[in-house]
């Protein structure tokens, strides 16, 4: 799937849920389904600053593409980072670095989150962008 197709799929998935409760349930499910993140990778340098809960993000380059793994001690946050990496994992770093991440607004995630959480979301996006920029040719 291309980046556009991935984003459209997320927007479509979210459009099924009118109620905030269902959106949270969905994010919780995404969080729970996230692949286990090795304990030894939960290091200070992988921690995303600016979130109330702790969020770790790691990236590997394989065949010129970026593959993200992540974890958080809060499950809704974990669901959000899971959603982000499902959209961006496996793409060329240049493509991620150039993206505007605007689909976040379309799924009502930003408005549904508390101010501190919204900052956390911004920090997550900035970290993904920063990693991609550093790995870009």
């Amino acid at each position, binding site marked *: 799937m291309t980046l556009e197709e991935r984003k459209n799929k997320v927007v479509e998935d979210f459009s099924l849920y009118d109620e905030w409760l269902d959106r949270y349930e969905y994010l919780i499910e995404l969080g729970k389904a996230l692949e286990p993140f090795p304990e030894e990778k939960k290091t200070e340098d992988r921690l995303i600053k600016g979130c109330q809960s702790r969020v770790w993000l790691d990236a590997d380059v394989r065949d010129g593409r970026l593959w993200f793994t992540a974890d958080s001690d809060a499950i809704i946050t974990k669901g959000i980072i899971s959603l982000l990496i499902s959209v961006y994992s496996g793409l060329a770093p240049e493509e991620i670095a150039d993206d505007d991440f605007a689909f976040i607004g379309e799924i009502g995630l930003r408005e549904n989150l508390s101010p501190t*959480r919204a900052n956390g979301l911004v920090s997550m996006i900035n970290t993904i962008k920063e990693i991609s920029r550093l790995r870009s040719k």
Partner: protein
Amino acid sequence: MKPLQLREQFPILDTKVYGKPLVYLDNAATSQRPKSVTEAFVKSCNSANSNLHRAVHKLAVDATDAYENARRRVQEFLGAAHPEEIVFTSGATAAINLVAYSFGEAFVGEGDEIIVTEAEHHSNIVPWQLLCERKKAMLKVLEVDDNGEFQIGHLKELITHNTRLMAVTHISNVLGIENPVREIVEICHQSGVPVLVDGAQGAVHRRVNVRELDCDFYVFSGHKLFAASGTGVLYGKRLLLDAMPPFMGGGEMIETVKFSGSTWAKLPGKFEAGTQNINAVPTLVPALDLLEECLKDAELAENQESIKKYIYDFLENHPRITQYGRPAEHERKVPLFSFKVEGAHHEDLALILDKMGIALRSGQMCAEPLMDRLGVTGLLRASFAPYNTMAEAEYFTKCLDKAIEMLV
């Protein structure tokens, strides 16, 4: 008075959030404002707005009267001996910083010691750390046990002939436990050590009399007890305040200004540099009137007591919940509860409860050292005010169970 009657005075409590009635349980962060307070604020803006003290015109006289009237009201509220022992600041934090700087300049030097407890708010830790750095003094910590309580015996061991001040909270903003301040003051005074009491939560829940407590400084914030924000109070014994140098320089705090050297105004002006919070300070009068009414009203007290018992027992008996702040004597607990839920992050819970209309606090609550001591990264806190009802308490426990169910 019934809580429902009291609620009529707080328009914001009728608010709906996400279509649900607001259940405001973040009172320890800030209380809501009654109509009498907003009316006093508006009245000050609309009919007595002028800068204070320094003009002879009618409006200036009225504004100054309202401001000084508030000072006398605070003096009465705290049982202070003299009105000039009351200094207005922007809040409890500013009041502690004032003392840390000014008392520190006068009385703290290299090798001296300041004592704080492990259960303090950052505002009653960091100003002392800054002072200690400045003066090469040492900050000593009175440790707490798993229940958040300290041993009074340990305090005696910590005091040395180098101890210059003890700073302690009246009621912890995390644990909701009233500390034995009278006893602490007595012990400290035996060694000639002055005591500052952080009353940010204490003044909300207890009748305070600074002369009975015999504390040397007592600070609180108006916004936590119904007044407008930006209204802080520093009470200090006159003898001490007189011996302390000014904290900030500027208008109103001077007697004469010459380039060869200036002299300072008498108390309390010496510590009130610059334009004061002209419109907000008068709101302390209706705020303290209402607070005192609440504190002596039997029906409201009974309601608070029932809520306290109900929530305490609910948290205590819940298989997934660990409650912090469990004093040996029930009467030392106020309706302020911090807890963690096994398997559910405090932030997730707060986020879900928010959507159910419930406002509460999650995180470290400005008490990171205490969080470290308790071995947690953060907690959830529900804090109740006299206007909270039993129905709200029951709705809260029901929603909490629902949120836990969603998360685990």
